[in-house]
């Protein structure tokens, strides 16, 4: 088309993009305004924040968290949320990935003027992801990293005295998770994953202010606002099962752009039968963190690593839990008899 397409919102400016979410042609200003208004709308409608709260923004240096930190600071000023914002980063210890992305976070801290705190796997668990990956091999790395990060964020936020954690999960992430949990038959998570505000009892509440923002729009917004972010895929990611769900979602979006929002809608409306046994939430015997099992996943994985059995926490959970909680009793001389214990466990066929 030779004539420039006009913005469908203001009718004056020249359209700069076609919105992935609605398909409308918009100019730059209208898109930025709409995107900000929508995130504000989400925050207000879902009552994500209360005035006076301290919110730790999970900052990885990637596009989602960069946009989230930028938006929260902007909207906090513009609409007077009355929040104290902090940046919280987790250093997993992945050379060539996290060290570079943390540099991006540090650059942003200067720009946003928000305090930054970094917690590292090495400090918290004594293991960096690189070391874990050397032990575990090419598969299941994301299991370790995901479980540890979840807890690391919580511990970091508690350390900083935050009331809430805001993460940069976007609509694509939620849709992907819905798909993945459906494929894996994980009904417990299926019900939880579509929530916008979770875990209010016990642990720190977490919220996803970008839950309804399309990944593509986040990239567009970051581009138009000239935000500095780090975009490289994690070196361990390609082997993850999530990849299947991700590919499927991209294909779905190509067929019907609203599929992302449709999946989120589906996830929100799923109703689990009342007679289905759901995992009950308790606390971990060892670290006191939220867990549906006697021991939380992080403790189990860590135990496996420390015993030289990295695959301990992967696969059938019931048997392994039993082995571990049985071993829990002679807690005192744990280090000494770990050799012996590991030998005993090796006879169990995992």
């Amino acid at each position, binding site marked *: 088309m030779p004539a420039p397409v006009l913005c*469908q*919102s*203001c009718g*004056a400016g020249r359209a700069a993009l076609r*919105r992935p*979410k*609605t398909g*409308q042609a*918009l100019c730059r200003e*209208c898109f930025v*305004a*709409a995107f*900000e*208004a*929508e995130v*504000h*709308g*989400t925050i*207000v*409608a*879902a*009552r994500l924040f209360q005035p006076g709260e301290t919110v730790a923004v999970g900052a990885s240096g990637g596009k989602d968290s960069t946009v989230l930190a930028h938006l929260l600071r902007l909207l906090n000023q513009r*609409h007077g949320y009355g929040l104290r914002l902090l940046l919280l980063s987790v250093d997993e210890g992945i050379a060539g990935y996290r060290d570079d992305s943390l540099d991006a976070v540090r650059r942003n801290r200067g720009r946003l003027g928000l305090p930054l705190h970094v917690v590292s796997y090495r400090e918290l668990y004594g293991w960096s992801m690189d070391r874990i990956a050397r032990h575990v091999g090419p598969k299941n790395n994301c299991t370790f990293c995901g479980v540890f990060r979840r807890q690391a964020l919580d511990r970091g936020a508690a350390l900083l005295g935050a009331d809430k954690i805001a993460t940069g999960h976007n*609509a694509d992430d939620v849709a992907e998770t*819905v*798909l993945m949990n*459906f*494929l*894996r*038959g994980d*009904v417990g998570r*299926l019900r939880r994953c579509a929530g*916008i*505000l979770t875990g209010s009892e016990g642990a720190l509440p977490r919220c996803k202010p970008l*839950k*309804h923002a399309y990944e593509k729009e986040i990239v567009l917004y970051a581009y138009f606002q000239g935000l500095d972010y780090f975009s490289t895929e994690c070196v361990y990611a390609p082997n993850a099962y999530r990849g*299947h769900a991700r590919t*499927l979602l991209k*294909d*779905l979006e*190509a*067929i*019907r752009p*609203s*599929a992302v*929002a*449709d*999946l*989120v*809608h*589906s*996830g*929100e*409306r*799923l*109703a*689990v*039968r*009342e007679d*289905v046994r759901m995992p009950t939430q308790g606390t971990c015997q060892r670290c006191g963190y939220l867990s549906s099992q006697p021991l939380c996943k992080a403790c189990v994985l860590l135990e496996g690593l420390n015993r030289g059995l990295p695959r301990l926490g992967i696969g059938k959970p019931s048997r392994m839990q039993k082995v571990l909680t049985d071993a829990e009793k002679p807690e005192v001389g744990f280090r000494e008899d770990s050799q012996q214990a590991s030998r005993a466990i090796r006879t169990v066929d995992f």
Partner: protein
Amino acid sequence: MCESEEGGGCGGGGRPARAPRGGRPLKCMKCKEGPPVLIIRVGDAFCKACFKDYFVHKFRALLGKNRCIFPGEKVLLAFSGGPASSAMVRQVQEGLSREAAKKLRFKPGILFVDEGGVCGQGLEKRGEVRSQLERILRATGFPYHLVNLEEVFGLPGSILRAVSHSATDHSQSYKEAVDGFIQQQELLQCERTGGPGESLPGRLAELSIQDPSEKETAEVPGPLSISHTAELTRLFGAVKTLTAREELLQTLRNHLILHVARTSGYTKVMMGDSCTRVAVKLLTNLCLGRGAFLAGDTGFSDGRHGDVLVLRPMREYSAKEIAFYNRLFGVPAIFTPALATKAPDRASIHRLIESFLCKLQSDFPSTVSTVYRTGEKLGAAPGDDDSDGATEPERCLLCLCTLDTNVVDGSSLQSTLLSEELCQKPPLSAGSSCCEDAPTQTGCCKAPPVAGAIPPQVWLLPLLCYSCRLTIKDMSCLEPLPPYIHSEAERRRRSRAAMKQEIQEFLLEDDEAPPAS
């Protein structure tokens, strides 16, 4: 055969059934006698007879477990000619012809919907398929109905209304339900024949199979009306995407099946969805935004129509099992092209999910069954079925599911609506200033009416569920929709307007969507 078995396996239990490691099993793992012909699950080799027993048992067990068909009840078998529904018809035949105890005791009829009109088949080809079908159907000995999809243009608007029906009440025991059913039947019988004296010939007529089948097939207009085929083509031509076309076809087909069931007195409909099909449907519907309705769309029984219960007795068989059964026992099936036949993988969401699941299944062999079992754990949304009767929940005009479009705060639907509003806004209000004063009221943005650019769908959308809205949004114009949809939509809008009139003075805000519960 038996000799070698007895000689070698004396006291050894099940030993000889399994082959030496890695080799082919030598005997059927069940009867330990017959030669195995196929492996059902890993390591389980069955002989032909045992496979048949296993297959037949599964069907009867599922019906027996759910106990929702009454003796003497008329059951309509939805037959597409494909492998699963063919196997289903065969199962019913087996169940009825059995001399053994526990014979199935319902009265089946078969329905075939000819969709050649939308799947690009010429009249000649359709005639061919038809004669092929009739040969198969006549061989079953059941009464049958051949219906053209074109007949949706003659459906009554009442097809879009759920009939409240006491028999779907599960609180009473099966025995009571059966008694109630029989009493009701007798009452009907008396009414129909004018008195108890004449009931015998009436019953005899129902027992004889040939007679009613003649009569019922004669009901169907023989020659296809060309004008309706053209209307159908126009209707599907107005749908822009294959995804929406698939959904529309499914909707229309369901309406037609329901119509045949109601007019011919069937109170149950059996669909031949296999386990594989159910898994594909679960994931597809999830992607189409039908998350709230997954249980109804794929479960064993679906009572959304009220008077006619839809059953899926084939949902525990994998497509592979069915293929083996049909091949081993010579079940005839015919191939009719569907909408997506020969279409590439990414032509529609339906196609994409099907190929995705099949590919994943070949890498992770438990994929289909895991998805199926995930679906098993889902139920109807709370407040869906346990309505107190006083306030009938509003149902989608097309799929008859309870509307899932109440706007919940912080939901995906709310955000989508907001995005649409923000982008269509007239230029005068900039940014988010409009919402600033009353942040919790999304209604304030709706105030400026959008002049001119109202898409034709707007008046239909409030009557539809989330997913059917998507389907209708993919249509360029709505006029080609069959008249019964228009008339029922009109009726609902009028009754809604009347209701609004009555409560007008109590309303604080003029809002299209029903309030969040």
